[in-house]
């Protein structure tokens, strides 16, 4: 066992999860592959969405994977950073919008 929770080499072993549950693993990877195909959204747009979400869910494997995917698709670093900010804005917005709950509760409890 490695001494850290995350090992970069684990990313390329991702497919191995199918070994312990073939049906679910296969279904997941089929679904995953289908999601990122060219559709109503381009594969390029989906790659940027995936990069933003990777940061929001703070998944180092996903960040490695979608930075590389973006490079392969010719996506520029400016586009990548804007996508990260879009994710960060939603994440901080999600925190801040709870401020309304706090304000309502405050008002309710106050005379």
């Amino acid at each position, binding site marked *: 066992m490695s001494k850290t929770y995350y090992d970069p080499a684990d990313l*390329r072993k991702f497919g191995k999860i199918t070994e312990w549950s073939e049906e679910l693993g296969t279904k997941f990877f089929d679904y995953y592959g289908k999601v990122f195909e060219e559709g109503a959204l381009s594969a390029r747009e989906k790659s940027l969405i995936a990069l933003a979400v990777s940061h929001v869910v703070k998944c180092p494997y996903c960040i490695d994977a979608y930075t*590389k995917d973006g490079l*392969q*698709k*010719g996506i*520029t670093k400016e586009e990548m950073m804007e996508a990260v900010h879009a994710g960060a804005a939603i994440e901080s917005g999600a925190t801040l919008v709870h401020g309304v709950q706090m304000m309502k509760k405050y008002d309710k409890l106050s005379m």
Partner: protein
Amino acid sequence: MATKSLLKRNNELANAKRQLDILDGGIFADGELPKFADKIKEIGHFPLRPKKLEILQINVGYMCNQVCEHCHVDAGPDRKEIMTVETMKQCIEVIKKTGAHTLDLTGGAPEMNPNFRWFVEEASKAGIKDFIVRSNLTIIRANKKYYDLPQFFKKHNVHVVSSMPHYTRGKTDKQRGDGVFDKSIKALQELNAVGYGMPDSDLKLDLVYNPSGAFLPGDQMALEKDFKKALMEDFEISFHNLFAITNLPVSRFLDYLIASENYEDYMYALVEAYNPSAVANVMCTNTISISWDGWLYDCDFNQMLGLKVANKIQHISEYNEAILNDRNILISQHCYGCTAGAGSSCQGTVA
């Protein structure tokens, strides 16, 4: 960014044998990753054999005005290996008789060979169907003596294939050197001005895209669309096709992979992207590569790795297409670069 070749720097990777040891060792020697030979055995393609010869690729010298970080030729201003007129004459005799439909001149910067223009004039008389010159674009702007190259190419109906790693300045200059982007844009505009790359023009202008780093090229069609849109919108530049070419772990790109600690991940990526359906059309099955000193190779990469054809005919002076076509193609782990994803060749994807 380096300004000298590996050879000039006495880097151990200037030695082809050392490169082959690396490609055969490490993760491939201990069985962590399968060797290329084993992968093509699985689909009955071992030994790899040539099909009909279609392309004669001639490297007229390793001298170049640029020192690109990914260059598998280890080309640069300090390389003095240049094809002589005598060897060129032997090539012309072969071009007159060959069954190949495409002649592909490469380098280095082929234009820097002092006899380049004479060679193009003579070769164009042989009536070969598609006559390619691989031009790095900046050479057209490097010195006054090259300014008329677009007209020269046009006069001899040369098909120009040029490198352009990205449609943004930053990425291009990082891979190929400062100022390369602006010079390349100017050169493309000049090629367009004489008719190259225009939508209905017979003067063919194609671009080559190599990833600027340790990653594989994305979908060739999607990249072509992005390049066309950006170059047209920003610079009013037109071109015909984009060839997305995978960087093979040879010479300076191998050095980069090792120095940046990307070698193992990159080899994993190549092996994972192995596409059995690309194997039948890899370029070594329809190409002969000729070096500046007249030796014959299965491909340009094997040339740089010093792997001469496994045949009793090994030199242009004794060239015989029928005998030469009866050979086993030499392979190593760098070959995974040509079978990854949609495959890769000097003409782009193959699968």
